[in-house]
Structures are given as structure tokens and as C-alpha cells.
């Protein structure tokens, strides 16, 4: 057993070390000249990469483990035993480094792994024969470690982000061009007046707020008119009706809002978002860098009026925020969130305006992806926005989680399948069932709980400052349980329900099932 654990440890630390190193080297860039001076310059540039040091730390740990194993067994056993890193490495290359592994490459790596396994099977000096049971259990243990590693990676990415934000904003506050805040609305959210009013109270030199509703009957309209009376000094406009029709009603409103906006910098937020007075300043300041093409924001719950809303808040802080922060750290954001979509008219024109997103389900995701595709950076606002989650039931919560996961399946089928590696509870249960003793089984469940709760606390409480997560962190395993069920269900379901209408998805496009009501 100790032999296997040691081999696994060496393989995991080794593979993640190599992946970190590849990332660092790709950031340094291709070396084209090989004079001693050029190589020295390359080495200097490389050592300035933070990722290289993470790689060195991991590889050192791996190497030390390797040395220890060498003192126990002959090298011709130790080398194959640590070769599990080929499988971990290939998965890491695909999902973390975004390398394109075609069938031939997978086949080659598979052959190598089998070859190495054969070398391994002939004898293990003190381990006894390698039985199928031991191999299966080993594989399960290996897989069960992956979600734990991802949780840790998420916490680390959050720590990196939240640590750097204060210094970054302080430097750039002087950049404050005129802004149009655009708000498509449909129906009345909880705390709608306070949500809207928080935008009127921005500490910012020049900005306007433009609302758009589908028709005169919208219950949000009286609230917006009240707002206009209460903040007469703010230029607030209300547009009713959309010119374009598409399956995505919000995008139809955005098309009109952008056309009517007076200023070049537009900041779009969902109607259930509430912000602090410094929000606009910190978002606009990021555009001082001409490489920034879009800004989006993380979000946290204001309060949890129901059980469903608590789960929603935990999902945002413990699943969504870490994955966004990991993506940001590893490859830069290539998506955006409805909590904030900020960009300039020029960038918007480059991606074909919101007209190009009319029928798409995940318009906010696509918006960010297209900005990033044009070579611009999508940045995260330094502070999360507050989200007023509706007083939803468990059923409501599950339905919209399902909608979200189905959306991912259509945008990135590979990533959707890969989500299996993010379900730590599932893997901990499988590992516990495979464990030969009860104590080891409990240890797996304990390890999951400890890592999951600690990392979610770092991201949700320390980083985001989410009051719901602080109080209800213990709901996390419940969330993980439902999240796994939703993920399973997302393979079988293709119908989504959105604000009362039913759609099916085809390649990310929404096809209405019931005919939508007249959009005026």
C-alpha cells in the first residue's frame, strides 16, 4: 500500500509540476535562437514567471519522493511505477493547457501507459502481485484526488485575485469617461427599487441610466418611474418595446439599449444586481488599458430568503466563482457573466453587436468569448456585485441549475463532460466504497469535507465576502449532491424553461417550443 501511495504521490506532483512549467514556458514564448546569451536571456525571463516557481516546488516534492523510492527499490521498478503521470499529464494538457489531443496522440499515450503497466506488472519487490482489484482501486483513488486538487487550485486562484485587487484599482482611478448604464428589465425582482437606486448613487462624474422593458404592463415600470422622481439630478430614461425579435428577449432589449445609449462606454447589468457607490469607477478604470475589451464581475448573495436561494448563493461562491478564477489565472477570461457586461461601442461593433447574439441562450458567455476571440482581454471587476436572489423553492433552484448546465453542454460539450472531475462528493463516495477498510473509507469522506469546506471558505467568505456562505457553509455537501444530480440529468434533458417560456437548444441557439407572447 505504501508503495502505491508513494508512486501516486510522485506521479501527481510530477504531472502538475510539468503542467505548471509548460504554462510558464508558453508565457515566456518560443525560443528561436540558441546562442548561450539567448538561452541565458530565456532562463532569466523564465525565472521571472510565478508559474515556474510553482512548477519547481511541485517537481522538487515529486523528485524528493522519487529519490526516497529509489532508496527502497531498483530504478527499473521505480521508473515505471511513477508513470501514472502520463495519464494525469495528458488530461491536464487537454483541460488545463487547452492542447488539442487528436486520436493518434491519445492512442500513443495509451500504448505507452499499457507498456509501462506491463513493465510494472512483472514484479513489485515488496508489494505482492498487482491484482485487478488493486489496479482499479488505485485508479479510483487517483481520480478522487483530482476534484480535491481542483478545489485547492480554485482557492489559490481566488487568493491571487483578491490579494492583488486593491493595489490595481488604486493606480487607475483617474480614468473615468462618461458611461451609459443599460438595464434590460422584465418583471419585478426582490428589492428592485434598492437595486436600481444603487446605480443612481454612483460616485462618478458623468453617467446616464437607460432602462428597457418589453411592454407597458411590466410591473417594474412604476418602480423605475419612482426612481426618476427620486433622483431628478440623474439622466434616467425608460424605453418600452424592442425593434428586433429573437428567442432571447434580453438581447433584443440590449440591441435597442445600445443604439440609444449616449456614451461610448456601456455597462450592462442584470436587474437583480446591486452595487456599491465605487462600482462604476472601478469598472471604468479597467478600460484605461486599451487591451481590455470587456469587464465582467463576480457576484455574491445579499441575503438568502429561502432554501433554494441559499443553495444558489453557495453555488455561486463555491462552484462558479472558483472556476471563473481558475480560468482567469490559467488562460485569461474567455466569457462574461450577466452580473456585469461592460465594453465600448467600438468593441461591440467588432463582434457584430448584440444583434449577433439574438437567438443564443448564453448571451453573456458568448459576449465575453467573442471579445476574447478578437484578442482583447476580458477583466474581472475588483469587487463582486451583490445579487438579490429570488425567494426560490428547491424546485426552482434545480430547474435553473439544470438550465445552466444544459447551456454548458451546448457551448462546450467536452468541458461539460469534464465537469465529472469537479464533483468531489461523488468521487469521495466512490473512493470510500472502494476502500478496503472502514477507516480508510471515512478518511476519504473526511478529506473531501475538509478540503471542500476550507477552500469554499477561502473563496466565498474571505474573497467574495458572501454573508450567506459565511452562515450556511455547512450546506455545501447538500449543494454538491444536487449539483451532481443536475449534471447527470443534463445529459438526458434538452428542454429549458426560462422566465415562463419553454425552449429546446440546438448548438446553443434557443428554439421556442411554445410560441412566445407578442413582444410589442
Amino acid at each position, binding site marked *: 500500500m505504501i508503495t502505491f501511495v508513494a508512486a501516486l504521490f510522485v506521479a501527481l506532483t510530477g504531472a502538475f509540476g510539468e503542467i505548471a512549467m509548460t504554462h510558464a514556458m508558453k508565457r515566456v514564448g518560443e*525560443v528561436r535562437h540558441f546562442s548561450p546569451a539567448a538561452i541565458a536571456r530565456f532562463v532569466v525571463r523564465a525565472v521571472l514567471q510565478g508559474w515556474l516557481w510553482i512548477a519547481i516546488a511541485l517537481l522538487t516534492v515529486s523528485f524528493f519522493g522519487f529519490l526516497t523510492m529509489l532508496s527502497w527499490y531498483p530504478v527499473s521498478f521505480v521508473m515505471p511505477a511513477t508513470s501514472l503521470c502520463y495519464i494525469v499529464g495528458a488530461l491536464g494538457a487537454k483541460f488545463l493547457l487547452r492542447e488539442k489531443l487528436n486520436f493518434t496522440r491519445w492512442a*500513443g499515450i495509451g500504448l505507452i501507459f499499457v507498456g509501462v503497466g506491463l513493465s510494472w506488472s512483472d514484479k513489485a519487490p515488496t508489494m505482492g502481485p498487482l491484482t485487478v482489484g488493486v489496479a482499479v482501486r488505485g485508479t479510483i483513488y487517483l481520480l478522487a484526488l483530482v476534484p480535491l486538487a481542483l478545489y485547492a487550485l480554485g482557492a489559490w486562484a481566488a487568493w491571487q485575485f483578491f490579494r492583488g485587487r486593491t493595489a490595481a484599482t488604486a493606480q487607475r482611478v483617474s480614468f473615468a469617461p462618461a458611461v451609459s448604464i443599460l438595464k434590460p428589465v422584465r418583471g419585478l425582482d426582490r428589492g428592485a427599487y434598492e437595486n436600481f437606486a444603487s446605480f443612481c448613487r454612483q460616485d462618478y462624474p458623468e453617467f446616464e441610466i437607460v432602462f428597457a422593458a418589453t411592454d407597458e404592463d411590466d410591473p417594474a415600470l412604476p418602480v423605475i418611474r419612482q426612481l426618476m422622481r427620486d433622483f431628478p439630478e440623474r439622466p434616467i430614461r425608460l424605453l418600452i418595446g424592442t425593434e428586433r425579435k429573437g428567442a432571447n428577449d434580453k438581447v433584443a432589449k440590449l440591441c435597442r439599449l445600445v443604439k440609444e445609449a449616449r456614451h461610448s462606454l456601456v455597462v450592462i447589468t442584470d436587474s437583480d444586481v446591486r452595487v456599491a457607490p465605487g462600482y462604476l469607477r472601478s469598472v471604468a478604470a479597467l478600460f484605461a488599458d486599451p487591451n481590455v475589451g470587456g469587464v465582467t464581475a463576480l457576484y455574491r448573495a445579499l441575503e438568502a430568503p429561502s432554501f433554494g436561494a441559499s443553495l444558489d448563493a453557495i453555488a455561486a461562491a463555491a462552484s462558479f466563482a472558483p472556476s471563473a478564477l481558475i480560468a482567469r489565472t490559467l488562460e485569461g477570461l474567455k466569457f462574461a457573466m450577466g452580473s456585469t457586461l461592460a465594453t465600448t461601442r467600438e468593441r461591440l461593433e467588432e463582434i457584430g453587436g448584440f444583434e449577433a447574439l439574438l437567438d443564443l441562450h448564453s448571451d453573456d458567455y458568448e459576449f465575453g468569448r467573442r471579445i476574447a476571440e478578437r484578442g482583447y482581454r476580458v477583466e474581472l471587476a475588483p469587487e463582486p456585485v451583490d445579487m438579490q436572489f429570488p425567494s426560490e423553492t428547491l424546485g426552482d433552484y434545480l430547474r435553473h441549475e439544470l438550465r445552466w448546465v444544459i447551456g454548458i453542454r451546448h457551448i462546450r460539450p467536452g468541458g461539460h463532460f469534464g465537469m465529472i472531475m469537479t464533483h468531489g462528493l461523488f468521487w469521495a463516495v466512490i473512493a470510500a466504497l472502494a476502500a478496503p477498510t472502514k477507516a480508510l473509507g471515512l478518511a476519504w469522506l473526511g478529506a473531501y469535507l475538509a478540503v471542500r469546506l476550507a477552500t469554499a471558505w477561502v473563496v466565498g467568505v474571505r474573497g467574495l465576502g458572501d454573508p450567506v456562505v459565511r452562515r450556511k457553509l455547512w450546506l455545501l455537501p447538500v449543494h454538491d449532491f444536487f449539483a451532481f444530480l443536475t449534471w447527470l440529468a443534463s445529459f438526458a434533458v434538452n428542454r429549458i424553461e426560462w422566465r415562463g417560456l419553454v425552449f429546446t437548444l440546438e448548438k446553443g441557439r434557443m428554439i421556442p417550443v411554445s410560441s412566445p407572447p407578442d413582444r410589442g
Partner: protein
Amino acid sequence: MTHSTRDLRPKTYAFLFLELLFGTLGNTLFDKGMKEVGALGFLSASQIWAEALRIASNGSMWVGVLCMVLFIVCHMLVLSWADYSFVMPFSAFSYGLVPLFAFFWLGEKVLTARWIGIGLIVAGVALVSTTPPSTTEPAVGEVSLERLK
């Protein structure tokens, strides 16, 4: 900033060869060195320190370290342009070379199943070598460095 596969192959193979050579030499030297040092134990901080000193006083270990430094520089250079999933399988060659070195130099026994395993590894590496060395776009870092020039 796109590279044709043809441009990358010669230098990729050249550095992979050097990497493999230094890596295999280094590993074998470490094996030799550690056998001379004997079994290690890490029970207390003072024991770890004593073990570290014992390892550091072995000549083979030092030559091994030199080989490993050269190995890592070659590895870093290759990874600056090639995929990790392309480079990684090539290092599996050391599974073939290390038993060979162990067989001829250190006199360790190599079993039949292991020879078959080595055959499969070679076939796997051959398959991987038919795929393009780089499938990712250059990272943002490279672009900004180009701009600085």
C-alpha cells in the same frame, strides 16, 4: 504568429534527444549514487539534515545533478514552443533507456514482460511523433514581449 509544423520538428527533436540523454544519464547516476548511500530514513529534522549531507558527499550524485540541470534547461526550451502532450510521451523513452542502462551498466535484471512493455512504449512514441508538435496559440505573454522589442 502561427508556426508551420515543419519549422518546429528539427529543433524539437534535437532538444528532445539532448533532454533524453541528460535525463537518462542523470537518473542512472542517481541510482548508482543512492545505492552507494544506502537506505534513507526521515524521522526527525536532524535526521533529514544528516541524510541530505550524506547524499551531498557522494560524487555520482553531483554529476547526476549537473546532468539534471542540463536536462531541465532542454526541457524548458522545448516546452517554450511544443505541446506538453507531445513532449511528455518522448520522455517515456527513458523507460526503454533506463532498463537498458540498468542492464548493461548496473547489472540489474530486465524481465521479458518489461521488454514487451518497452516495445509498446516505443510504438506509442512513434504514434505521437506523427502528430504536430504544437497545437496551441502563442500565449499573451509572447505577444506582449514581441511588442516590447
